[in-house]
């Protein structure tokens, strides 16, 4: 079906022939409306241009859409919540319907969140929709980033859009964390306390920043109001702006596509926005919305009534941040304790500073990876054909190492639950994860690279000799052979069309010197491209055909 509906952008601009039929009443109204708007805005050129934008069809290209749609759900449900939430830390005595908290003193923020949960019609559902949609938003952003990374869709001309997407990911985490802290329940207060501790661990400025942030000593009475302003005003505005830039850049750069017959660096094969893609996308929005509603109506999230109001003395076993902050919490759990230096009467808390440095470095590496890879490979060409991960073994291996590093930190955030549920000691889990944090990425790198090369070899074998058909034939001479079924040209295309790279040759520059930069680049390039399987060439295919 997709194949028949396929249009290419080059043919898309051709005007479709219109048959002259007398329009009905409804159509006349639509025409009048269209003319009215057109006369005042000259919108038609834009609509025509945009309506004929082509989008390739692949499931992994829809992950960004999931993020966009869950953000829409977040906006809708969040607006509902603002009608009832009071971002104030004024002390009140709860007198709502939830019996175990009746008569308990708490902040107005907590009391209004309880009212939303128990006394506002539909309030609990909306809270759960908002929170589940937030988790799904960040999760789909993460998965979308992984897709872009592993298919090399961040290469020129899309490096800038990778950075915009990265900013969105950070903003999403910021939105998530500020939202998590708003209800002023025990869990959110404990989360804020950890942030406060990290801030205070920074030498010289830490204490000042903490006092500035909380308006005095933690917890103070200001933080919920401040986070609320960030959560509903500044951060959403930035997210919306970044989404706008992200989508515009995607349209300007055009979408990537996987290799296939008729697909080149110069075209985009797929369906146009109007009407097919728009219809599909509209339907898909409601599917995502539906999944969120289903989850929110069936499964509890953040039962603040269990946690009770924040009080600096208690804490619950199994206190964790939402999943997207888990990697930071995990890093704090993995750093060996007691790493402190006392210097001129000041204590330098390495167990805070090292995690902050590691997390910062990891985040920055993610942001700048496209530029690093472009520099190493020296590749200045535009790329519109997405790589299959196996065809870029070193990049895929780096990605696997990064994912492992992240996953170990993430797992460490639940070290206590891993210990209780798998009947292990929490120290054992922590020590294992400490080792895995260093060794895991190395192992993942080596394994992923070898797997990629093996898969490339397999592809090469299949492209040249076809599939094993399982049919054994006895030749007149008595020899038995298994008949290989040759691939169709269409299928073979996917296997053979990828770019071949070779390590850079280190050459002297115009002045006849080899600079250190060039040398480093040569070494890195060799690391990147030394192990490689060359794509099958035309002559090899022809030679293979002659053999049979």
């Amino acid at each position, binding site marked *: *079906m*997709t194949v028949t509906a396929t249009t290419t952008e080059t043919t898309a601009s051709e005007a479709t022939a219109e048959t002259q039929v007398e329009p009905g009443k409804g159509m006349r109204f639509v025409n009048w409306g269209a003319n009215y708007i057109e006369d005042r805005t000259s919108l038609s050129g834009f609509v025509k241009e945009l309506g004929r934008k082509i989008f390739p069809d*692949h*499931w*992994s290209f*829809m*992950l960004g859409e*999931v993020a966009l749609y869950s953000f829409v759900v977040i906006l809708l449900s969040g607006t509902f919540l603002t009608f009832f939430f009071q971002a104030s830390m004024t002390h009140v005595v709860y007198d709502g319907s939830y*019996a*175990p*908290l*009746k*008569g*308990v003193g708490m902040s107005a923020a907590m009391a209004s969140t309880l009212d939303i*949960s*128990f006394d506002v019609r539909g309030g*609990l559902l909306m809270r*759960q929709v908002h929170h589940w949609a937030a*988790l*799904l938003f960040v*999760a*789909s952003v993460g*998965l979308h980033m992984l897709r872009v990374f592993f298919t090399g869709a961040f290469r020129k001309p899309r490096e800038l859009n990778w950075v915009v997407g990265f900013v969105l990911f950070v903003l999403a985490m910021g939105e998530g964390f500020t939202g998590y802290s708003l209800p002023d329940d*025990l*869990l959110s207060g404990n989360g804020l306390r950890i942030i406060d501790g990290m801030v205070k661990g920074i030498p010289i400025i830490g204490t000042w920043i903490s006092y500035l942030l909380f308006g005095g000593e933690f917890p103070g009475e200001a933080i919920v109001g401040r986070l609320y302003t960030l959560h509903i005003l500044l951060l959403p505005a930035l997210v919306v702006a970044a989404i706008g830039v992200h989508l515009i850049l995607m349209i300007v750069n055009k979408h990537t596509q996987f290799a296939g017959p008729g697909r080149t660096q110069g075209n985009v094969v797929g369906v146009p926005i109007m009407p097919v893609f728009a219809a*599909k996308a509209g339907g*898909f929005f409601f*599917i995502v919305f539906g*999944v969120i509603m289903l*989850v929110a*109506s069936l*499964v*509890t*999230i*953040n*039962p603040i009534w*269990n*946690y*009770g109001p924040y*009080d600096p*003395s*208690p*804490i*619950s*076993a*199994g*206190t*964790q*941040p*939402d*999943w997207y902050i888990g990697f930071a919490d995990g890093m704090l759990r993995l750093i060996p304790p007691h790493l402190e230096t006392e210097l001129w009467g000041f204590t330098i808390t390495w167990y805070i500073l090292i995690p902050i440095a590691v997390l910062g470095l990891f985040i920055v590496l993610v942001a700048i990876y496209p530029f690093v890879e472009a520099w190493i490979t020296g590749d200045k060409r535009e790329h519109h054909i997405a790589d299959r991960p196996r065809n870029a073994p070193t990049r895929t291996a780096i990605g696997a190492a990064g994912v492992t590093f992240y996953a170990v930190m993430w797992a460490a955030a639940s*070290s206590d*639950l891993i*210990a*209780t549920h798998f*009947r*292990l*000691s*929490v*120290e054992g889990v922590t020590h294992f994860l400490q080792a895995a944090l260093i060794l895991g990425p190395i192992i993942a790198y080596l394994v992923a690279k070898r797997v990629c090369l093996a898969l490339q070899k397999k592809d090469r074998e299949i492209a040249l000799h076809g599939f094993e058909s399982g049919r054994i034939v006895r030749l007149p001479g008595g020899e038995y052979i298994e008949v290989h079924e040759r691939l169709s040209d269409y299928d073979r295309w996917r296997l053979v069309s990828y770019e071949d790279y070779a390590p850079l040759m280190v050459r002297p520059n115009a002045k006849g010197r080899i600079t250190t930069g060039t040398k480093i680049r040569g070494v890195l390039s060799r690391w990147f491209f030394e192990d490689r399987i060359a794509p099958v060439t035309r002559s090899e295919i022809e030679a293979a055909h002659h053999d049979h």
Partner: protein
Amino acid sequence: MATFAHRNRRSGRRSPLTSAALLLIGLLATGGAYAAFTATSSADAASQTQVTKLTEEGEKLFAANCASCHGLQAEGTEDAPTLIGVGAASVDFQVGTGRMPMAASGPQAEQKPVQFTEEQIAALATWVASLGPGPAIPDERYLQGDGDLAVGAELFRINCAMCHNVAGAGGALTQGKFAPGVVGVSAKHVYEAMITGPQNMPVFNDANISPEDKSAIITYLQYLETSTSPGGLELGSLGPVSEGLFIWIFALGGIVAITVWLTAKSN
């Protein structure tokens, strides 16, 4: 009596029989109380013999099942602590929840099917209690679950939640030890755990948390056990970890399955 008073009020005059009636009531009350007291005394005597019997039986059971680790006179050995002075509550908790006798040594004694009958547990508890003073099995009136719910919830969050989790789902301790889930544990065992501090649990004596407050905590735990979750499935009440796993595996996993289906080429 009621009809008499009723008639009296209607007539508006005190009956001449009133004094006689009052005298009769007074005499009956005094005599009844005296009779009851003597009856109690004889009941005490009866229970005393029963206690002796229980103690003897308990000693035999102890020698057969516990003495190999705790010593014949519960004086303790290298493998296990002395039980002199732990009180009846401790025995009732440890044996009544199946933690004792231990199946194997490990980070901590774990709950398992109870090995003794109610009577045998009572016998063991009586014998151990006879060795030295210790916390007794709690009074029924604290186990009714009729305490102050909000106070109980707050006390639970402050004193218990750091190990047992705010929803009583349990949590990890050091070296493979753990705080078990406490929702669904019988009121008596919860109370006994608080006053005896089994395994790694601290003792919450009556000066620390008064019996009324313990009763309030039990009330909250019973509320957690019987109330339905307002928000739907609780995912083990484990907090953000199970929520994160759920969104990745089921929600995002389901959506990815849908995207694969939407973009699948029709055959």
